């Protein structure tokens, strides 16, 4: 078993998720099944194969970096859970 409930809790912390001890058991066991299935890839020798991270032949084509004012401050803040009209507000940090 790769994903013990403790391991599942640790992964959740890394991913900024909070799970209950009961969820850790269920998720850990499901992740175990899924990762077990994925181990199938080890049947293949890929020592000489270049990884393919994107289907684009020449990734990274950049457009000219031009300044434009597409959105107003009010538009950008419109969907924020909390603002003071100028900035995004988050719980106190320090």
């Amino acid at each position, binding site marked *: 078993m790769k994903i013990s409930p403790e391991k599942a809790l640790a992964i959740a912390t890394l*991913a900024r*998720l909070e799970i209950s001890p009961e969820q850790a058991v269920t998720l850990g066991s499901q992740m175990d099944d899924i990762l077990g299935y994925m181990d199938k890839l080890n049947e293949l020798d890929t020592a000489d194969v270049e990884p393919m991270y*994107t289907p684009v032949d020449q990734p990274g084509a950049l*457009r000219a970096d031009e300044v434009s004012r597409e959105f107003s401050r009010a538009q950008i803040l419109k969907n924020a859970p909390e603002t003071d009209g100028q900035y995004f507000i988050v719980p106190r940090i320090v």
Partner: protein
Amino acid sequence: MSQLFDLSLTRVRDLLRSGEVTAEAATAACLERIAATEPALDALLHVAGAAALDQARAMDASGPDASRPLWGVPVTVKDVLATEGLPTTCGSRILENFVPVYDAHCVSRLKEAGAIIIGKANMDEFAMGSSTENSAYKVTKNPWNTARVPGGSSGGSAASVAAGQCFASIGTDTGGSIRQPASFCGIVGLKPGYGRVSRRGLVAYGSSLDQAGPMTRTVADAALVLQVIAGHDPKDSTSIDAPVPDYLEAIQGASLKGLRLGLPEQYWGEGLSAEVDAACRGAVDLAASLGAEIVPVSLPHTEYAIATYYILAMAEASSNLARFDGVRYGRRSTKSVDLATMYTRSRCEGFGEEVMRRIMLGTYVLSAGYYDAYYKKAAQVRRLIRQDFLNALGKCDLICGPACPTTAFAIGENTADPLQMYLTDIFTISLNLSGLPGMSLPVGLGRDTGMPVGLQLFAGNLQEAPLLAAAAVLEANLPAMPAPPIA
């Protein structure tokens, strides 16, 4: 005579253009159809009723505009595509109150072409699912049998098109999410090649796999919609800067004579239900009788595709979904005192179980000590899978196989075991890894379940035109698909 909502997009477009049908009448017909069918289907998350009618009336006042290819045509779009002023939830609680301030590139293109956005279609949360049962809001039903799923993740789009709620929908396809629901609902679904349609404004799930495309009732309709949404976007660095051919012209007078149709042995054997096999083989026999040459081909790494796909997609998802933190948009937990618990609780209150599972798996496969064993390994196998396609396409013009092993399964049938649900994607998933274009074409109803069966066609890079052309010939020679039995 058919009712207005039953007509194909190309037909209604012609009637709108000639003034025989007004934009208001077309919009009203779709809204009436939505009102009649939504209680049974739950295909839409948001209906822009009054705004759409206002827009239609304003368009009628200035009269038809032949320079706009979708003038007055009501369409829906999957709720993963940003629509200015219309809610865009991605089927998730975390975006429950999110109203974008801009349109996705393909939505802008639809609007410029004169289409009227009448609704946002239900979907599996963040496009993670194969049945539209993972939506945080509702479970969409299949218009052919409401006890069955419409497929997913673009299940709302597929059901809305099949039921006549709209004349086309834009879905997105990361591992089959256009083609599989199109197959389950008996419509046409086209996944363009990666980069053919801009991803700007498509809320990212697996960035190297995601692609938006048309879901329609006919092949010509798909060609018309693709014509509108395809093309280079300087604001998507993965968008391809290549000319867009005339897709409608490509399907005119098309023929299958001399076309080499490759049948991968891995798609036509074990695991395929008898009724899907029979319907798809019937379509292949038809293609042969119309002059296509049937060629055996092999995609030898097919059995590794699901594992490869889920590692890469989950890794990309865990990174993409890190942006949902309760700061700039989306849900914020009120039960938090400090920043770290605000992030954590907002995400846990907002995300459903499947999304959490995929984020955790993605986090695991990207974590120190496991990156090479999972993520890099999968990226290497991805290249082998792409090479399989390129090798096969060296021996044939188009690859052909069933879209799904079975017809639409029952609601609840695959929800208990996530891995079992993933395994249903076997025939659609490889294509996204390759980045090549493909489509699902309805070829009839299964003899056992009476549910629609879809045949897939795959083509080489930027070969959407020959793909559509072959599908149009098959469509014209197959018995017409009946309308689904929804009131």
